[in-house]
């Protein structure tokens, strides 16, 4: 059947930028073979322009979401790339398996998670999602359908994991799930009054936990700069039936006016949030869902930032420069008064093998900022400069504004990636708004 084409104004999760584009939505797996030069799009949870193509054609993967095989001996699930992590977890948690790595939302597809090589609260122990993928199938623009993995055509695999969809359409993924004792976590919080203290807590071996993340108050200034709450979790056994909602409990039905997330309200929210969570210093039991996906409870929470949308800025700084770099970044953000709630700080483990994968050993900070035109752009340039000085990098699946030179300096393995891109797409058919902005597909 000929695929229908829809035209639409399309954006990422940050709702900025918004571009004109066309979309096809195949319902049969082999339809993917007939779409060279079409950029795959999953649930649209990358924040910036990674899953956009100005005046180009996107391929919605959402109808290709079938589970193809599960091996209970090894935990390996084979599934089509349009399957969401939410569906995987809902299906397998009752059977005693969970995602080996999960980002802060479960509403991402398997293909999107691989293309962004997402990491989670266990990165310091378990690495990125690509570390748990024995193989995948990718429909490349020029080399056809290829199966690759760490053992089979590893160059294509490590260019595809973290490759932002630019080596081809990821069609099928094998993912090694992780056995868990039950659907519960034991969670404990540790408050930190400032940046120095939170960095000490992350380094404290007595606080080692499989999952760790810190919420950080980006509006706190002066002596309170970096005020945060470290949240630690570990899987525990317990009776079945912990809630794992497959859809949001509440939908934000329309855009909120921009003042709702103005500095005053966010300051208020942050104070209350800090007070409530800093107290939970005794271990308590939590279902997986609220620990891993606090924002998933509200559908379309991105509408809270109003019609102009927002940008998420996520950077990582190597440990050596983290203390100084984070201080200067937090100072820049708090003095710009750019409101951000639920900003997170996390210690990352060693870099994986993905040529364009984001994580490197050090500390990563992620924060949301309402988009306010030139003022926001100026702040982003300032932050990029601070990150570059510290030898860090920004996360491409959040980004919408990084410049080419900064990108090249941040991602030294770009040449290895480009070599694969030249092999599987010599004519440069497959591009995205992100790849054109960063010059990723020029000279490929």
């Amino acid at each position, binding site marked *: 059947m000929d695929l229908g084409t829809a035209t639409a104004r399309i954006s990422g999760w940050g709702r900025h930028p918004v571009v004109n584009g066309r979309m096809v939505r195949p*319902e049969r797996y082999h339809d993917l073979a007939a779409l060279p030069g079409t950029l795959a799009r999953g649930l649209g949870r990358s924040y910036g322009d990674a899953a956009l193509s100005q005046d180009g054609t996107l391929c919605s993967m959402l109808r290709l979401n079938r*589970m193809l095989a*599960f091996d209970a001996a090894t935990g390996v*699930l084979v599934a*089509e790339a349009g399957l969401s992590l939410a569906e995987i977890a809902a299906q397998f948690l009752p059977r005693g398996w969970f995602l080996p790595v999960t980002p802060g939302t479960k509403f991402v597809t398997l293909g999107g998670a691989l293309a962004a090589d997402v990491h989670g609260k266990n990165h310091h122990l378990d690495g990125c999602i690509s570390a748990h993928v024995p193989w995948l199938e990718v429909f490349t623009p020029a080399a056809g359908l290829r199966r690759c993995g760490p053992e089979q055509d590893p160059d294509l695999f490590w260019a595809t994991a973290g490759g932002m969809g630019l080596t081809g359409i990821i069609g099928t993924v094998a993912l090694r799930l992780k056995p868990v004792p039950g659907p519960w976590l034991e969670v404990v919080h540790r408050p930190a009054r400032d940046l120095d203290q939170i960095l000490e807590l992350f380094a404290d071996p007595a606080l080692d936990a499989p999952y760790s993340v810190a919420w950080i108050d980006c509006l706190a200034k002066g002596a309170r700069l970096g005020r945060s709450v470290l949240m630690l979790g570990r899987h525990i056994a317990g009776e079945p039936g912990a809630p794992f909602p497959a859809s949001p409990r509440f939908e934000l039905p329309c855009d909120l006016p921009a003042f709702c997330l103005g500095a005053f309200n966010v300051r208020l929210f942050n104070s209350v949030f800090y007070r409530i969570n800093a107290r939970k210093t005794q271990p308590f039991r939590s279902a997986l869902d609220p620990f891993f996906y606090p924002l998933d409870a509200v559908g379309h929470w991105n509408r809270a930032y109003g019609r102009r949308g927002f940008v998420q800025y996520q950077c990582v700084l190597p440990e050596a420069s983290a203390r100084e770099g984070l201080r200067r970044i937090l100072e820049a953000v708090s003095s710009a008064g750019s409101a951000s709630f639920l900003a997170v700080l996390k210690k990352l483990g060693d870099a994986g093998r993905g040529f364009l994968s984001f994580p490197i050993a050090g500390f990563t900070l992620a924060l949301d900022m309402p988009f306010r035109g030139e003022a926001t752009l100026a702040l982003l340039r300032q932050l990029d400069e601070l990150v570059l000085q510290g030898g860090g990098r920004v996360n491409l699946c959040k980004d919408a504004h990084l410049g080419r030179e900064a990108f090249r300096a941040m991602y030294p393995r770009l040449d290895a990636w480009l070599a694969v891109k030249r092999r599987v797409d010599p004519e440069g058919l497959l591009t995205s708004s992100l790849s054109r902005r960063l010059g990723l597909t020029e000279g490929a």
Partner: protein
Amino acid sequence: MSGAVLILGAGSPMAREAARLLAQRGEALFLAGHDPLELERLAADLRVRWGGRVAVGRFDALDPASHPALFARVLDEFGELDRVLMASGYLGPAPAALEGEEPGRILALNFSGLLPMLGLCAAHFERRGSGVILGIGSVAGDRGRQSNFVYGSAKGGFALWLQGLRNRLHGTGVRVVTFKPGFVDTAMTFGKPGLFLVASPEAAGAALVRALDGGPDIVYFPAFWCVIMALIRAIPERIFKGMKL
């Protein structure tokens, strides 16, 4: 009922969702369609998720000679069959073509080509004295319109056939259901301008399963199409013939 459900045209999104719900409650399924490789992926999905019995076969509306073998395979596979869901259909690029091969193709894929297979099922159910036959028609089959009347006449013809079958099988214990969807969000409608109130295939699948389980002989989905089509049918022909629909 304990026997299996045969789904013809099982690759369609509505049928896919119905199959998912049926598999979830442990029903044995036979998925048939023109693309068995694709159906194998669907069957694998149902087995991984729900662990039930799912078999796959090729159904080709353009090759009626193959239907008896398929029917025999279904019985062979599951021992007994007691419900059939006919979801095969084809809109094509020119649902109002006047010339060439397309009108015949549309008729075969939506109507005439489905009858030999459904006839086998109907005769079997009539002999047994029980069973359900559900055919997917279309609101397009309720009145001929210039935009899609070849497709509409095929769907309308199919609805008449189902109506006659229902009449014949009345009192035998066999139910015959005509399911008439409006716009559903599938490849058939994706990107088409001028559509309104498009329903999700998930909701359509749930409605299909409800209709298989019981309820009225003719089901509009979503239900408000019953009212819309009643109004459209009520327009006098001398006015309707001048309308652009």
